[in-house]
Protein backbone atom coordinates (compact mmCIF):
# COMPACT_ATOMS: atom_id res chain seq x y z
CA UNK A 1 0.00 0.00 0.00
CA UNK A 2 2.71 2.40 1.02
CA UNK A 3 4.75 1.44 -2.01
CA UNK A 4 1.83 2.04 -4.40
CA UNK A 5 1.19 5.41 -2.80
CA UNK A 6 4.87 6.23 -3.19
CA UNK A 7 4.77 5.26 -6.87
CA UNK A 8 1.73 7.47 -7.42
CA UNK A 9 3.42 10.30 -5.59
CA UNK A 10 6.53 9.88 -7.74
CA UNK A 11 4.43 9.96 -10.90
CA UNK A 12 2.71 13.08 -9.62
CA UNK A 13 6.06 14.67 -8.89
CA UNK A 14 7.69 13.87 -12.26
CA UNK A 15 4.99 13.27 -14.87
CA UNK A 16 7.45 14.08 -17.67
CA UNK A 17 9.53 10.99 -16.80
CA UNK A 18 6.55 8.74 -17.45
CA UNK A 19 5.12 10.29 -20.56
CA UNK A 20 6.55 12.55 -23.20
CA UNK A 21 3.17 13.59 -24.56
CA UNK A 22 1.40 16.71 -23.47
CA UNK A 23 -1.79 16.25 -21.53
CA UNK A 24 -4.98 17.70 -23.03
CA UNK A 25 -3.31 18.33 -26.38
CA UNK A 26 -5.73 17.26 -29.10
CA UNK A 27 -5.01 15.66 -32.47
CA UNK A 28 -2.61 12.83 -31.59
CA UNK A 29 -5.09 10.60 -33.36
CA UNK A 30 -8.09 11.40 -35.49
CA UNK A 31 -10.90 10.74 -33.05
CA UNK A 32 -11.34 8.01 -30.45
CA UNK A 33 -8.65 5.29 -30.56
CA UNK A 34 -8.46 2.10 -28.50
CA UNK A 35 -5.39 1.34 -26.33
CA UNK A 36 -2.42 0.31 -28.46
CA UNK A 37 1.36 0.10 -27.95
CA UNK A 38 1.65 3.78 -29.03
CA UNK A 39 -1.17 4.95 -26.78
CA UNK A 40 -1.26 2.61 -23.77
CA UNK A 41 -4.60 3.92 -22.57
CA UNK A 42 -5.93 5.05 -25.93
CA UNK A 43 -7.15 8.51 -26.86
CA UNK A 44 -10.46 10.35 -26.53
CA UNK A 45 -12.87 11.85 -29.04
CA UNK A 46 -10.53 14.75 -29.81
CA UNK A 47 -7.48 12.53 -30.08
CA UNK A 48 -6.08 13.51 -26.67
CA UNK A 49 -3.73 10.99 -25.04
CA UNK A 50 -5.53 9.47 -22.02
CA UNK A 51 -2.30 8.17 -20.46
CA UNK A 52 -0.66 11.61 -20.46
CA UNK A 53 -3.83 13.11 -19.04
CA UNK A 54 -4.12 10.54 -16.28
CA UNK A 55 -0.46 10.93 -15.34
CA UNK A 56 -0.74 14.69 -15.14
CA UNK A 57 -4.00 14.25 -13.27
CA UNK A 58 -2.03 12.48 -10.55
CA UNK A 59 0.03 15.59 -10.15
CA UNK A 60 -3.13 17.71 -9.98
CA UNK A 61 -4.60 15.41 -7.32
CA UNK A 62 -1.52 15.61 -5.13
CA UNK A 63 -1.31 19.33 -5.67
CA UNK A 64 -4.91 19.83 -4.60
CA UNK A 65 -4.60 17.47 -1.65
CA UNK A 66 -1.42 19.00 -0.29
CA UNK A 67 -2.44 22.62 -0.74
CA UNK A 68 -5.95 22.18 0.67
CA UNK A 69 -4.75 20.16 3.65
CA UNK A 70 -2.10 22.74 4.40
CA UNK A 71 -4.58 25.61 4.20
CA UNK A 72 -7.14 23.91 6.42
CA UNK A 73 -4.40 22.90 8.87
CA UNK A 74 -3.18 26.47 9.24
CA UNK A 75 -6.71 27.78 9.74
CA UNK A 76 -7.46 24.95 12.17
CA UNK A 77 -4.58 26.06 14.41
CA UNK A 78 -7.09 28.59 15.69
CA UNK A 79 -8.71 25.67 17.46
CA UNK A 80 -5.59 25.40 19.57
CA UNK A 81 -5.76 29.04 20.61
CA UNK A 82 -9.47 28.72 21.31
CA UNK A 83 -8.90 25.68 23.48
CA UNK A 84 -6.04 27.24 25.40
CA UNK A 85 -7.39 30.71 26.03
CA UNK A 86 -11.07 29.80 26.17
CA UNK A 87 -13.57 32.58 26.74
CA UNK A 88 -15.28 34.60 24.08
CA UNK A 89 -12.87 33.81 21.24
CA UNK A 90 -13.50 30.14 21.89
CA UNK A 91 -17.27 30.61 21.83
CA UNK A 92 -17.14 32.57 18.60
CA UNK A 93 -14.90 30.08 16.85
CA UNK A 94 -17.03 27.14 17.86
CA UNK A 95 -20.19 28.82 16.59
CA UNK A 96 -18.49 29.44 13.26
CA UNK A 97 -17.52 25.78 13.02
CA UNK A 98 -21.08 24.79 13.92
CA UNK A 99 -22.32 26.99 11.12
CA UNK A 100 -19.85 25.62 8.58
CA UNK A 101 -20.57 22.06 9.59
CA UNK A 102 -24.32 22.53 9.46
CA UNK A 103 -24.28 23.28 5.72
CA UNK A 104 -23.06 20.41 3.49
CA UNK A 105 -19.53 21.20 2.49
CA UNK A 106 -19.94 20.30 -1.15
CA UNK A 107 -22.88 22.63 -1.62
CA UNK A 108 -20.79 25.48 -0.26
CA UNK A 109 -17.90 24.57 -2.53
CA UNK A 110 -20.19 24.59 -5.57
CA UNK A 111 -21.71 27.93 -4.56
CA UNK A 112 -18.36 29.60 -3.97
CA UNK A 113 -16.74 28.31 -7.19
CA UNK A 114 -19.70 29.62 -9.13
CA UNK A 115 -19.45 32.97 -7.37
CA UNK A 116 -15.69 33.39 -7.47
CA UNK A 117 -14.92 31.78 -10.81
CA UNK A 118 -13.50 28.41 -11.83
CA UNK A 119 -9.85 29.20 -11.55
CA UNK A 120 -7.63 26.42 -10.21
CA UNK A 121 -6.16 28.53 -7.39
CA UNK A 122 -9.65 29.68 -6.41
CA UNK A 123 -10.87 26.12 -6.18
CA UNK A 124 -7.95 25.10 -3.97
CA UNK A 125 -8.48 28.09 -1.70
CA UNK A 126 -12.20 27.41 -1.46
CA UNK A 127 -11.81 23.72 -0.65
CA UNK A 128 -9.05 24.50 1.84
CA UNK A 129 -10.98 27.28 3.50
CA UNK A 130 -14.07 25.13 3.92
CA UNK A 131 -12.53 21.99 5.35
CA UNK A 132 -10.92 23.21 8.57
CA UNK A 133 -13.77 22.87 11.11
CA UNK A 134 -13.26 19.17 11.87
CA UNK A 135 -9.54 19.67 12.36
CA UNK A 136 -10.10 22.76 14.48
CA UNK A 137 -12.44 20.81 16.72
CA UNK A 138 -9.94 18.03 17.22
CA UNK A 139 -7.23 20.55 18.06
CA UNK A 140 -9.45 22.42 20.45
CA UNK A 141 -10.53 19.28 22.26
CA UNK A 142 -6.96 18.04 22.59
CA UNK A 143 -5.74 21.42 23.82
CA UNK A 144 -8.50 21.58 26.39
CA UNK A 145 -7.31 18.30 27.84
CA UNK A 146 -3.60 19.07 27.53
CA UNK A 147 -3.61 22.48 29.13
CA UNK A 148 -4.61 20.90 32.43
CA UNK A 149 -1.65 18.53 32.30
CA UNK A 150 1.13 18.88 34.82
CA UNK A 151 3.88 19.60 32.34
CA UNK A 152 2.03 22.70 31.20
CA UNK A 153 1.91 23.87 34.80
CA UNK A 154 5.60 23.14 35.17
CA UNK A 155 6.34 25.18 32.04
CA UNK A 156 4.31 28.05 33.45
CA UNK A 157 6.13 27.82 36.73
CA UNK A 158 9.51 28.34 35.09
CA UNK A 159 8.15 31.41 33.34
CA UNK A 160 7.36 30.24 29.79
CA UNK A 161 5.23 32.55 27.67
CA UNK A 162 1.83 31.18 26.84
CA UNK A 163 2.57 31.32 23.11
CA UNK A 164 5.66 29.18 23.72
CA UNK A 165 3.66 26.78 25.84
CA UNK A 166 1.12 26.50 23.06
CA UNK A 167 3.57 25.75 20.28
CA UNK A 168 6.34 24.04 22.17
CA UNK A 169 4.56 22.05 24.86
CA UNK A 170 1.05 21.49 23.56
CA UNK A 171 1.40 21.37 19.79
CA UNK A 172 3.70 18.30 19.64
CA UNK A 173 1.25 16.47 21.87
CA UNK A 174 -1.65 17.27 19.57
CA UNK A 175 0.04 15.93 16.44
CA UNK A 176 -0.66 12.22 17.03
CA UNK A 177 -4.40 12.81 16.92
CA UNK A 178 -4.21 15.33 14.09
CA UNK A 179 -2.01 13.45 11.63
CA UNK A 180 -4.55 10.71 10.77
CA UNK A 181 -7.22 13.33 10.14
CA UNK A 182 -4.80 15.19 7.90
CA UNK A 183 -4.55 12.09 5.70
CA UNK A 184 -8.34 11.93 5.57
CA UNK A 185 -8.55 15.64 4.87
CA UNK A 186 -6.19 15.07 1.97
CA UNK A 187 -8.43 12.45 0.39
CA UNK A 188 -11.58 14.54 0.93
CA UNK A 189 -9.98 17.49 -0.83
CA UNK A 190 -9.02 15.29 -3.78
CA UNK A 191 -12.58 13.94 -4.06
CA UNK A 192 -14.02 17.44 -3.87
CA UNK A 193 -11.81 18.72 -6.66
CA UNK A 194 -12.64 15.70 -8.86
CA UNK A 195 -16.34 16.19 -8.21
CA UNK A 196 -16.16 19.89 -9.04
CA UNK A 197 -14.31 19.17 -12.28
CA UNK A 198 -16.70 16.37 -13.15
CA UNK A 199 -19.60 18.78 -12.84
CA UNK A 200 -17.85 21.08 -15.25
CA UNK A 201 -17.22 23.73 -12.61
CA UNK A 202 -13.50 23.09 -12.52
CA UNK A 203 -10.73 24.89 -14.31
CA UNK A 204 -10.99 23.75 -17.94
CA UNK A 205 -7.24 24.20 -18.45
CA UNK A 206 -6.19 21.80 -15.72
CA UNK A 207 -5.80 18.08 -16.46
CA UNK A 208 -7.96 16.93 -13.59
CA UNK A 209 -9.22 13.36 -13.37
CA UNK A 210 -12.70 14.74 -12.83
CA UNK A 211 -12.70 16.47 -16.21
CA UNK A 212 -11.52 13.27 -17.93
CA UNK A 213 -14.25 11.28 -16.18
CA UNK A 214 -16.88 13.67 -17.52
CA UNK A 215 -15.42 13.32 -21.04
CA UNK A 216 -15.36 9.55 -20.61
CA UNK A 217 -19.03 9.65 -19.72
CA UNK A 218 -19.69 10.71 -23.31
CA UNK A 219 -16.96 8.58 -24.89
CA UNK A 220 -18.51 5.43 -23.47
CA UNK A 221 -21.45 5.80 -25.88
CA UNK A 222 -18.99 5.62 -28.77
CA UNK A 223 -17.45 2.49 -27.23
CA UNK A 224 -14.54 4.36 -25.61
CA UNK A 225 -14.63 2.57 -22.22
CA UNK A 226 -10.92 3.22 -21.66
CA UNK A 227 -11.44 6.95 -21.35
CA UNK A 228 -13.82 6.49 -18.44
CA UNK A 229 -12.11 3.51 -16.82
CA UNK A 230 -8.54 4.83 -16.53
CA UNK A 231 -9.15 7.93 -14.37
CA UNK A 232 -11.79 6.10 -12.30
CA UNK A 233 -9.48 3.23 -11.45
CA UNK A 234 -6.62 5.55 -10.54
CA UNK A 235 -8.90 7.74 -8.50
CA UNK A 236 -10.35 4.83 -6.51
CA UNK A 237 -6.86 3.49 -6.10
CA UNK A 238 -5.47 6.73 -4.67
CA UNK A 239 -8.40 7.27 -2.33
CA UNK A 240 -8.35 3.73 -0.97
CA UNK A 241 -4.61 4.06 -0.38
CA UNK A 242 -5.09 7.37 1.43
CA UNK A 243 -7.85 5.98 3.62
CA UNK A 244 -5.78 2.94 4.48
CA UNK A 245 -2.90 5.26 5.30
CA UNK A 246 -5.14 7.30 7.59
CA UNK A 247 -6.22 4.10 9.28
CA UNK A 248 -2.67 2.93 9.71
CA UNK A 249 -1.61 6.29 11.12
CA UNK A 250 -4.51 6.17 13.52
CA UNK A 251 -3.48 2.72 14.74
CA UNK A 252 0.04 3.94 15.16
CA UNK A 253 -0.67 7.24 16.88
CA UNK A 254 -3.92 6.85 18.75
CA UNK A 255 -2.84 6.13 22.31
CA UNK A 256 -6.23 4.69 23.20
CA UNK A 257 -5.91 1.99 20.55
CA UNK A 258 -2.27 1.40 21.30
CA UNK A 259 -2.84 0.36 24.88
CA UNK A 260 -6.09 -1.49 24.16
CA UNK A 261 -8.08 0.65 26.53
Amino acid at each position, binding site marked *: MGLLLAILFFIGLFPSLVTKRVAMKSGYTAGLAAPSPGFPLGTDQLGRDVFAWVVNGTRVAFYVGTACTLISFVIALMGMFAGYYGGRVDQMLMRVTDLTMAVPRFVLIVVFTTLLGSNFINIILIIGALSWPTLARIMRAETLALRER*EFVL*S*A*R*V*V*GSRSIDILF*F*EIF*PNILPSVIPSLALQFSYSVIDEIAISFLGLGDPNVASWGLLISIGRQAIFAGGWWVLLSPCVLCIFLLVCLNLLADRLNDRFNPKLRFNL
Partner: protein
Amino acid sequence: MLKIRDLEVQYQAAGSRIRAVDNVTLDMRARECIALIGESGSGKSTIANAILRVLPENSAITRGEILFKGRSLLDLTEEEMRRVRGKDISMIFQDPHSFLNPVLRIGDQLSETIKTHSPGLSGAKIVERAIELLSVVSIPDPARILSRYPHQLSGGMAQRVAIGLALSSDPALVIADEPTSALDLTIQAQVLKLLKGLRDRFNLSVLLITHDLSIVSNIAERVYVMYSGQIVEEDRVEGLYRDPRHPYTIMLLEAVKKLQGSDTSFSARAEAREERVESRCKFLPRCPQAAPACSEQAPHYIEFPGGKKVLCCA
Protein backbone atom coordinates in the same frame (compact mmCIF):
# COMPACT_ATOMS: atom_id res chain seq x y z
CA MET B 1 12.68 37.51 51.56
CA LEU B 2 9.24 35.98 51.37
CA LYS B 3 6.47 37.31 53.52
CA ILE B 4 2.95 36.01 53.43
CA ARG B 5 0.37 37.99 55.36
CA ASP B 6 -3.14 36.81 56.24
CA LEU B 7 -3.42 34.85 53.03
CA GLU B 8 -6.82 33.44 52.24
CA VAL B 9 -7.56 31.30 49.19
CA GLN B 10 -11.02 30.10 48.36
CA TYR B 11 -12.12 27.35 46.03
CA GLN B 12 -15.46 27.47 44.33
CA ALA B 13 -16.80 23.92 44.28
CA ALA B 14 -20.31 22.87 43.33
CA GLY B 15 -21.92 26.08 44.47
CA SER B 16 -20.20 26.22 47.83
CA ARG B 17 -17.01 28.03 48.76
CA ILE B 18 -14.23 26.21 50.46
CA ARG B 19 -11.53 28.09 52.29
CA ALA B 20 -8.44 26.08 51.40
CA VAL B 21 -6.00 28.55 52.94
CA ASP B 22 -7.21 30.44 55.93
CA ASN B 23 -5.38 33.39 57.35
CA VAL B 24 -1.88 32.10 56.76
CA THR B 25 1.06 34.23 57.79
CA LEU B 26 4.50 32.98 56.96
CA ASP B 27 7.97 34.48 56.97
CA MET B 28 11.04 33.29 55.21
CA ARG B 29 14.51 34.75 55.34
CA ALA B 30 17.04 34.53 52.55
CA ARG B 31 18.85 31.17 52.35
CA GLU B 32 16.48 29.66 54.82
CA CYS B 33 14.80 26.33 54.35
CA ILE B 34 11.37 26.10 55.84
CA ALA B 35 9.03 23.17 55.74
CA LEU B 36 5.29 23.24 55.44
CA ILE B 37 3.83 20.01 56.73
CA GLY B 38 0.32 18.74 56.98
CA GLU B 39 -1.96 16.03 55.71
CA SER B 40 -3.34 16.02 52.20
CA GLY B 41 -5.97 18.66 51.69
CA SER B 42 -4.55 20.91 54.38
CA GLY B 43 -3.73 23.62 51.84
CA LYS B 44 0.04 23.21 51.49
CA SER B 45 0.12 23.04 47.73
CA THR B 46 -2.46 25.76 47.42
CA ILE B 47 -0.06 28.11 49.19
CA ALA B 48 2.67 27.13 46.72
CA ASN B 49 0.39 27.78 43.76
CA ALA B 50 -0.74 31.05 45.26
CA ILE B 51 2.84 32.29 45.62
CA LEU B 52 3.48 31.66 41.92
CA ARG B 53 -0.04 32.71 41.00
CA VAL B 54 -0.80 29.53 39.12
CA LEU B 55 -3.96 28.64 41.01
CA PRO B 56 -6.65 26.70 39.18
CA GLU B 57 -9.42 28.76 37.61
CA ASN B 58 -12.00 27.82 40.21
CA SER B 59 -9.97 29.34 43.02
CA ALA B 60 -8.95 32.83 43.98
CA ILE B 61 -6.88 34.69 46.51
CA THR B 62 -9.53 36.52 48.48
CA ARG B 63 -7.43 38.27 51.08
CA GLY B 64 -3.90 38.94 52.25
CA GLU B 65 -0.63 39.73 50.57
CA ILE B 66 2.47 37.97 49.37
CA LEU B 67 5.70 39.94 49.39
CA PHE B 68 8.84 38.71 47.68
CA LYS B 69 11.95 40.82 48.25
CA GLY B 70 9.61 43.62 49.20
CA ARG B 71 7.54 43.40 46.02
CA SER B 72 3.91 42.50 46.28
CA LEU B 73 3.43 39.55 43.95
CA LEU B 74 -0.32 39.91 43.95
CA ASP B 75 -0.09 43.41 42.45
CA LEU B 76 2.11 42.44 39.52
CA THR B 77 0.69 42.17 36.02
CA GLU B 78 0.62 38.74 34.44
CA GLU B 79 3.66 39.61 32.29
CA GLU B 80 5.65 40.85 35.30
CA MET B 81 4.65 37.74 37.18
CA ARG B 82 5.84 35.58 34.29
CA ARG B 83 9.29 37.13 34.70
CA VAL B 84 9.29 36.31 38.39
CA ARG B 85 8.47 32.67 37.70
CA GLY B 86 11.59 30.66 37.06
CA LYS B 87 13.89 33.62 37.46
CA ASP B 88 13.13 34.54 41.09
CA ILE B 89 10.90 31.74 42.25
CA SER B 90 10.84 28.28 40.79
CA MET B 91 9.12 25.06 41.65
CA ILE B 92 9.77 21.33 41.83
CA PHE B 93 6.86 18.92 41.77
CA GLN B 94 5.95 15.55 43.11
CA ASP B 95 5.81 13.27 40.09
CA PRO B 96 8.63 14.17 37.71
CA HIS B 97 7.27 12.02 34.91
CA SER B 98 4.01 13.85 34.57
CA PHE B 99 5.75 17.21 34.92
CA LEU B 100 8.05 16.60 31.98
CA ASN B 101 6.59 16.82 28.50
CA PRO B 102 6.33 13.21 27.28
CA VAL B 103 6.95 13.94 23.60
CA LEU B 104 9.98 16.19 23.90
CA ARG B 105 13.60 15.28 24.43
CA ILE B 106 15.17 16.32 27.72
CA GLY B 107 17.58 18.58 25.85
CA ASP B 108 14.77 20.40 24.06
CA GLN B 109 12.86 20.97 27.26
CA LEU B 110 15.94 22.34 29.00
CA SER B 111 16.95 24.61 26.15
CA GLU B 112 13.44 25.97 25.75
CA THR B 113 13.44 27.02 29.40
CA ILE B 114 16.94 28.46 29.13
CA LYS B 115 15.92 30.43 26.05
CA THR B 116 12.89 31.86 27.81
CA HIS B 117 15.01 33.71 30.31
CA SER B 118 18.08 34.50 28.23
CA PRO B 119 16.78 35.05 24.71
CA GLY B 120 20.05 36.17 23.14
CA LEU B 121 21.96 32.95 23.78
CA SER B 122 23.45 31.04 20.83
CA GLY B 123 22.60 27.39 20.18
CA ALA B 124 25.98 26.07 21.34
CA LYS B 125 25.82 28.15 24.52
CA ILE B 126 22.37 26.79 25.28
CA VAL B 127 23.51 23.18 24.93
CA GLU B 128 26.51 23.98 27.09
CA ARG B 129 24.27 25.42 29.76
CA ALA B 130 21.90 22.43 29.56
CA ILE B 131 24.80 20.03 30.07
CA GLU B 132 26.05 22.15 32.94
CA LEU B 133 22.62 22.04 34.58
CA LEU B 134 22.43 18.30 34.29
CA SER B 135 25.85 17.85 35.82
CA VAL B 136 24.91 20.23 38.61
CA VAL B 137 22.11 17.84 39.53
CA SER B 138 24.64 14.96 39.42
CA ILE B 139 23.43 13.23 36.31
CA PRO B 140 26.15 10.97 34.93
CA ASP B 141 26.92 11.44 31.23
CA PRO B 142 24.66 14.50 30.78
CA ALA B 143 25.37 14.87 27.07
CA ARG B 144 23.75 11.51 26.43
CA ILE B 145 20.68 12.27 28.54
CA LEU B 146 19.92 15.34 26.41
CA SER B 147 18.65 13.17 23.58
CA ARG B 148 16.51 10.99 25.82
CA TYR B 149 12.76 11.17 26.29
CA PRO B 150 11.30 11.38 29.81
CA HIS B 151 9.90 7.82 29.74
CA GLN B 152 13.42 6.50 29.19
CA LEU B 153 14.54 7.87 32.55
CA SER B 154 14.06 6.36 35.97
CA GLY B 155 12.06 8.27 38.56
CA GLY B 156 15.15 9.54 40.34
CA MET B 157 16.76 10.65 37.09
CA ALA B 158 13.60 12.39 35.96
CA GLN B 159 13.36 14.22 39.27
CA ARG B 160 16.96 15.36 38.89
CA VAL B 161 16.13 16.68 35.43
CA ALA B 162 13.10 18.45 36.87
CA ILE B 163 15.30 20.03 39.54
CA GLY B 164 17.76 21.08 36.84
CA LEU B 165 14.88 22.61 34.92
CA ALA B 166 13.77 24.52 37.99
CA LEU B 167 17.29 25.84 38.54
CA SER B 168 17.86 26.80 34.92
CA SER B 169 17.62 30.53 35.49
CA ASP B 170 19.14 30.84 38.95
CA PRO B 171 16.07 31.35 41.10
CA ALA B 172 16.48 32.70 44.62
CA LEU B 173 13.61 30.68 46.01
CA VAL B 174 12.67 27.14 45.14
CA ILE B 175 9.35 25.72 46.18
CA ALA B 176 9.58 21.95 46.43
CA ASP B 177 6.13 20.44 46.49
CA GLU B 178 6.48 16.89 47.83
CA PRO B 179 9.68 16.44 45.82
CA THR B 180 10.36 12.94 47.08
CA SER B 181 6.93 11.46 47.66
CA ALA B 182 6.82 9.64 44.33
CA LEU B 183 10.29 8.13 44.69
CA ASP B 184 11.72 5.00 46.30
CA LEU B 185 13.23 5.37 49.73
CA THR B 186 16.85 5.11 48.58
CA ILE B 187 16.25 7.55 45.75
CA GLN B 188 14.47 9.87 48.18
CA ALA B 189 17.62 10.06 50.25
CA GLN B 190 19.73 10.83 47.18
CA VAL B 191 17.42 13.54 45.89
CA LEU B 192 17.23 15.08 49.34
CA LYS B 193 20.99 15.11 49.63
CA LEU B 194 21.19 16.71 46.21
CA LEU B 195 18.67 19.36 47.20
CA LYS B 196 20.66 20.13 50.33
CA GLY B 197 23.89 20.37 48.37
CA LEU B 198 22.35 22.66 45.78
CA ARG B 199 20.95 24.84 48.50
CA ASP B 200 24.39 25.49 49.96
CA ARG B 201 26.00 25.84 46.56
CA PHE B 202 23.58 28.35 45.07
CA ASN B 203 22.39 30.06 48.27
CA LEU B 204 18.86 28.98 47.59
CA SER B 205 15.95 29.50 49.86
CA VAL B 206 13.78 26.42 49.89
CA LEU B 207 10.13 26.14 50.78
CA LEU B 208 9.65 22.43 51.29
CA ILE B 209 6.12 21.11 51.21
CA THR B 210 5.69 17.62 52.54
CA HIS B 211 3.79 15.28 54.75
CA ASP B 212 6.90 13.30 55.55
CA LEU B 213 8.32 14.28 58.92
CA SER B 214 11.55 12.36 58.41
CA ILE B 215 12.51 14.63 55.51
CA VAL B 216 11.80 17.73 57.51
CA SER B 217 14.35 17.13 60.25
CA ASN B 218 16.89 16.42 57.58
CA ILE B 219 16.82 19.64 55.64
CA ALA B 220 14.57 22.30 57.13
CA GLU B 221 15.39 24.90 59.75
CA ARG B 222 11.89 25.96 60.64
CA VAL B 223 8.60 24.18 60.34
CA TYR B 224 5.06 25.34 59.84
CA VAL B 225 2.44 22.72 60.67
CA MET B 226 -0.78 23.12 58.74
CA TYR B 227 -4.17 21.77 59.51
CA SER B 228 -7.28 22.45 57.49
CA GLY B 229 -5.89 25.57 55.85
CA GLN B 230 -4.49 27.10 59.01
CA ILE B 231 -1.03 27.14 60.45
CA VAL B 232 -1.44 25.51 63.84
CA GLU B 233 2.16 25.51 64.98
CA GLU B 234 5.32 27.25 63.94
CA ASP B 235 8.76 26.58 65.38
CA ARG B 236 12.38 25.77 64.70
CA VAL B 237 12.85 22.09 63.89
CA GLU B 238 14.55 21.21 67.19
CA GLY B 239 11.87 22.98 69.18
CA LEU B 240 9.11 21.25 67.29
CA TYR B 241 10.52 17.79 67.80
CA ARG B 242 11.53 18.35 71.41
CA ASP B 243 8.52 20.19 72.60
CA PRO B 244 5.49 19.97 70.33
CA ARG B 245 2.63 21.94 71.77
CA HIS B 246 -0.30 21.75 69.43
CA PRO B 247 -2.29 18.54 69.90
CA TYR B 248 -2.15 17.91 66.15
CA THR B 249 1.64 18.18 66.07
CA ILE B 250 1.86 15.86 69.05
CA MET B 251 -0.34 13.34 67.27
CA LEU B 252 1.77 13.59 64.12
CA LEU B 253 5.01 13.01 65.95
CA GLU B 254 3.55 10.16 67.94
CA ALA B 255 2.27 8.55 64.79
CA VAL B 256 5.81 8.47 63.45
CA LYS B 257 7.15 7.03 66.69
CA LYS B 258 4.49 4.35 66.77
CA LEU B 259 5.15 3.41 63.19
CA GLN B 260 8.84 3.16 63.88
CA GLY B 261 8.17 1.03 66.95
CA SER B 262 6.18 -1.28 64.67
CA ASP B 263 3.11 -0.58 66.73
CA THR B 264 0.53 0.15 64.08
CA SER B 265 -2.42 0.31 66.40
CA PHE B 266 -2.46 4.08 66.13
CA SER B 267 -5.87 5.38 65.35
CA ALA B 268 -6.72 8.95 64.86
CA ARG B 269 -10.23 9.97 65.60
CA ALA B 270 -12.02 10.21 62.29
CA GLU B 271 -12.42 13.70 61.05
CA ALA B 272 -15.90 14.83 61.90
CA ARG B 273 -17.74 16.44 59.05
CA GLU B 274 -20.40 18.15 61.11
CA GLU B 275 -21.26 21.79 60.69
CA ARG B 276 -18.87 23.96 62.60
CA VAL B 277 -18.98 27.54 63.53
CA GLU B 278 -16.51 29.33 61.30
CA SER B 279 -14.35 30.87 64.02
CA ARG B 280 -14.04 27.79 66.22
CA CYS B 281 -11.01 25.54 66.35
CA LYS B 282 -10.99 23.32 63.28
CA PHE B 283 -9.07 20.59 64.99
CA LEU B 284 -11.54 20.28 67.81
CA PRO B 285 -13.37 17.17 66.53
CA ARG B 286 -10.12 15.21 66.44
CA CYS B 287 -8.39 16.80 69.41
CA PRO B 288 -7.44 14.42 72.21
CA GLN B 289 -6.98 17.32 74.60
CA ALA B 290 -10.27 19.04 73.86
CA ALA B 291 -11.71 20.86 76.84
CA PRO B 292 -15.32 21.97 77.18
CA ALA B 293 -14.18 25.57 76.96
CA CYS B 294 -12.72 24.96 73.46
CA SER B 295 -16.09 24.86 71.77
CA GLU B 296 -16.98 28.24 73.17
CA GLN B 297 -14.06 30.36 72.05
CA ALA B 298 -11.99 31.02 68.99
CA PRO B 299 -8.39 29.78 69.01
CA HIS B 300 -5.57 32.31 68.92
CA TYR B 301 -1.83 32.23 68.43
CA ILE B 302 0.07 31.70 71.66
CA GLU B 303 3.72 32.71 71.49
CA PHE B 304 6.45 30.85 73.29
CA PRO B 305 10.05 31.87 73.86
CA GLY B 306 12.30 30.74 71.00
CA GLY B 307 9.88 31.67 68.25
CA LYS B 308 7.30 28.94 68.69
CA LYS B 309 3.73 29.89 67.88
CA VAL B 310 0.74 27.68 68.48
CA LEU B 311 -2.85 28.19 67.42
CA CYS B 312 -4.97 26.93 70.28
CA CYS B 313 -7.63 27.90 72.80
CA ALA B 314 -5.82 26.67 75.88
